[in-house]
């Protein structure tokens, strides 16, 4: 089993979390062009890389942001999603 160490919660089994996909910068809905919007919704570089991702801790209902490499599966950073992040990628 894989474990991850979180602020406040300490060491938790990864199976307690639900994956919420990668963090991406949402374009401004008022001014965005159709192309930029579909790029945001659908098109991406899916090659192996280090990503910021949403992870939801079910028992406590807390959203976290993990920095994780999609080739090695190493989690290198864990933070509360609602701290200091204003929808920024």
């Amino acid at each position: 089993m894989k474990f991850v160490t979180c602020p406040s919660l300490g060491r938790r089994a990864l199976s307690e979390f639900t994956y919420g996909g990668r963090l991406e910068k949402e374009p401004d809905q008022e001014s965005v062009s159709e192309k930029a919007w579909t790029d945001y919704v659908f098109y991406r570089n899916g090659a192996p890389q280090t990503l910021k991702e949403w992870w939801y801790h079910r028992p406590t209902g807390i959203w976290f942001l993990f920095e994780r490499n999609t080739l090695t599966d190493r989690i290198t950073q864990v933070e509360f999603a609602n701290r200091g992040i204003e929808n920024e990628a």
Partner: protein
Amino acid sequence: MPLRLLKYAWKKSEDEPRFFPDETPLKKAYDVVIIGGGGHGMACAYYLAKEHGITNVAVLEQGYIGGGNTGRNTTIVRSNYLTSEGVKFYDESLKLFEDLSDDFDLNIFYSTRGHFTLAHTDSAMRTMRWRAEVNKHHGIDSEVVDVETIQKEVPYMDMSCNGQHPVMGALYHAPGSVARHDAVAWGYARGAQQRGVEIHQKTRVTDIKTKGGKVVGVETDRGFVEAKKVISMVAGSTPRITEMLEIETPIEIFPLQACVTEPVKPFMDTIVVSGSLHVYVSQSSRGELVMGASVDPAELHSTRSTLDFVEGLTDQMMDLFPFTSRLKIMRQWAGMSDITPDFAPIMGKTDVEGFYLDAGWGTWGFKATPVSGKTMAYTVANDTPHELIKPFSLSRYADFKLVGEKGAASVGH
């Protein structure tokens, strides 16, 4: 086939010819380079040579033939999809599958079993009725059946699922089949090679070169080769190839795992799938139960196996087939699934002239091997998409023309 076996038995020496000839050096230039020697790549090479007379073709495979998802899948072949586009496409594949053993003069062990997709909820029953109607409209043998019918066909199944989620009915698809995956790749590969195609194993494409927006060749770990046209048929490695050309796609890679039990006496000749429990099972000709589930929870470019998967799967499987609690798991493995948001493939031309894509096969692309090869060969030979794959273009997402296939493809096969 039996005649050939007899002839072989009377011979004193073992002079059966090698299946594939020894490795040759790469040529300087090819008309077509296919990246990926899985079933799709081999089938495409085969049809390019056989139906379009294009034989100056090289298939470049970084590992060995069929060593990707082709050799890792649970081999379920069916056409009872949800969308018209999907049903027509997969039905064509099923028809091609039925003749492959003869075409190849090689037994692919194509075995028609009948396929049950169980429904445990009202909403699942609704999807089954919907699928049955779409299927029948296209002349596919597909119907909703009741609990008694299922119990008769699959006598060892606990229809109450341990009292947890009773089976309410199922979609039954008589043509549902299994086949020997390796033989499919080998048959296509040998057929292509006999017609002049070159297959280079242990040859990895490291870059794709363009000039003025047009493909000119590929860089490999054995040097540069010129190519007028390049087709990417690499399933779980697709994003690494498209990145070379800065092409963005909606594809994300998720591991998909499977496992088999020790062999037991034949007791179940049908394929059983439960969408609600996220599991499926069939019994192989050796007697093993071949089992699979949904993809792993998060994006990952890896073929590692996990205990979480086996625990989750066997937990559900024991509700369906209580006696399996006594069986041992013999092997488990994983492949990399190239998942799209609408659970339909991405096929055809791209914005880069001479570069073609066959991808987004996720957890369901083995059954598409023949038809993908055939339609991609047509598309490349004519530089225009085959009618059957027009709905699957990479640009469909930008046009918001998705092919909502999730209701029929979200469990791993």
